[in-house]
């Protein structure tokens, strides 16, 4: 398959690095990273990634707010968004479903199959 470009939006730099490492090793995807929702929206507008991995709990504008802004933006609304979150309670699941994200991956994730999980959610073939 063609190499994909993935945008990671997470305020935790070590998590960005580990996700990058996982996706590189498993699928050799290209990765760009943003440390805040606003920076992420900016990168998404300019680079049009194939998918966005979005952390939920971030300072300033959180993941849900970031998703809503991406969704209203004509340049980014077509990009599938997968939430990376430790929050998996029933209420949260219902909220994520309601706002229309493509998928949710629970943190901590299995590092050796992260790309497979993303590909499965997006119906990509690895």
């Amino acid at each position, binding site marked *: 398959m063609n190499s994909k470009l993935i945008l990671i939006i997470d305020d*935790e*730099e*070590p*998590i960005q*690095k*580990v*996700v990058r*490492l*996982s996706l590189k*090793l*498993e*699928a*050799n995807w290209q990765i760009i990273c943003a440390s805040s929702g606003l920076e992420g929206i900016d990168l998404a507008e300019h680079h049009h990634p194939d998918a966005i991995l979005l952390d939920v*709990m971030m300072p300033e504008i959180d993941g849900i707010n970031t998703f809503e802004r991406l969704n209203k933006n004509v340049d980014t609304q077509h990009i599938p968004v997968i939430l990376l979150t*430790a929050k998996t309670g029933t209420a949260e699941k219902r909220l994520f479903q309601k706002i229309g994200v493509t998928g949710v991956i*629970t*943190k*901590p*994730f*299995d*590092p*050796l*199959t992260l*790309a*497979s999980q993303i590909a499965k959610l997006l119906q990509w073939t*690895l």
Partner: protein
Amino acid sequence: MKILLVDDDNALAEVLIQQLTVQNYVVDRVADGEMGWSYASTFDYDLIVLDWVLPSLDGLQLCQRLRSGGYGVPILLLSSKNQQTDKIQGLEAGADDYLVKPFDVKELIARIQALVRRTSSTEPQPILAWGNLCLDPISCNVTYQGYPVALTAKEYALLELFLRHSHQVFKASTLLDQIWSSDEFPSEATVRSHIRGLRRKLKAAGITTNVIETVRGLGYRLGTSPTDTPPTQKNNALSSAERQAQYLAGLMQTWQTHKGESLKRWNYLVTLSQTLKEQGLNEQQRLQAQQKVHSLAGTLGIFGLVEGHRLALQIEQLLATATSLSPRQIAQFQVLVTTLGHALDNPPQLVSWTEGPPTHLPKILLLDVTGAPYIQQLMALAVTQGLEVDIATSTDMAAEILGLNAPGDNNLDALAELPDLVLLNLVGSDNALDLNEVSLQLLLQLMSTLSQQWPQLPLVLITPQGDFGNRLDLVRRGAAMVLEYPVSPAEILEAIDQATYLRYRHSKIMLVDDDSHYLDKAMRLLKPWHFQITPLANPSRFWTIFNQIMPDVIILDIEMPGINGFELCKVIRSHPQWQHLPIIFLSIHADPATQSQAFAAGADDYITKFSQEDNLVLRILNRLKRYHAWCNQESALLTVD
């Protein structure tokens, strides 16, 4: 790693062999150039250390001869010739490195390691990994889930070889060539013995999957790692083992860079625990703390610091409850934070989180009225090992938690809320080991009440007096295990593990009775213990079902249509492999003659319906305990080819 040392200096060779062996290299040594040529042409080596000045054929000539024949193994040339032209001549002859005598052996070893790394891979891969099993060729350390695994030099060399060649099947004779030096004269039985030893140690370290597989008729190879994904067409460039190794190396590097941030968050929690104790938290502080510890939990989880991740989640949970914590919760908070600090020292590891969390955390109620320091240490260790510990600081508090204030309320729902074990501290403090009389009497009274109301609940005691008389008194009051102080926290946890029946949860129990009403009743009775119960009302299907589920315990009624319980019991016992399987009869017949008949058929126990059912669970657990002990012994014996 196997090295050929060609040097005629016996004293130097002796030192080098000793030092290289310590570094887990296997060394063949010869003293002249012609012998060096014979050995290099006959055996496989990973590196040759070659002296320049040698009898019969000098090192330079040998090097040229080897290279002209296409010999690709790295060669390190040793010489007392220290002119630049000598070095150039040596390297032009085909040596990969040149070291001038006299030299520091440490430098030689470092250069050997560098040469091996350079030739074994295009990229440095310092850590060899197989799931959570890691071998660091630089430090020669082997760890599983971050804990060291002690191996002999040969076991280490075997493991390293398998990890470096994860898809290769090695014949025993190849292993002999690779791992053993030529003057050791080992046989293939030696290889088998070392493989067995290695497997045993890896199993003892907690690895349940077979790391080294036997390929019948061919030899041995590295097994499939538990974290390996099924083979797909993706990313063929890297094998799973290579990916794991690279991932782990990257993870360690990233952790080293960012560990400081996690330590800062931990320091914040230390300060917070003091604030909590002194003045409590306002809502803003609580939310901020919750967010910080949440992020910390996420980071630690990503790095595979499982224990730290779990502790941070527990702290987050505590903070989520309320702004003001009870004294008990504050004490728990402090223990969690302290333990978390230690957990941050663990190395990152590869964790397959999709395997899911442990099914059940043992829940312990610790009754301690003294607040002794060793109890705090015990708490910290217990939390580290995954136990959920609730502390009662008075007998009243314990009675409330255990539902002893409502004696009639011993129904099954209440049973489900109970801890898995009660640990009772009867030791005063280091200054006065004996508790004061009033406290002691209250505790002893609580014990008696507890054992009457919840006879199944294991009660472990720590006492300053473990003599026979005192022990007898405590056992009479319901103690399942009595530990005499001083006893280390680790020993206490070991006792807890032995005394709880948690390990027997999910044991498979086959219940054969043609009375479906009684089957329902027995199922209800056993439900709180989380056994996997297979009820069977039709004994004619017994053998089919039995072979499908392979139960851990069988409970048989006697009178059933077609085949009676005695006959079923005899059929089971007629198979040599089922001689130890626990069989318990559960019958309405209370007469000694019927009971004798059951034991003669091969029963282990006999319980009378309606009158002895209270003992059913205990008797099942007793049987399971002994059966598991026997199975463990057997499986230890079976860890051979």
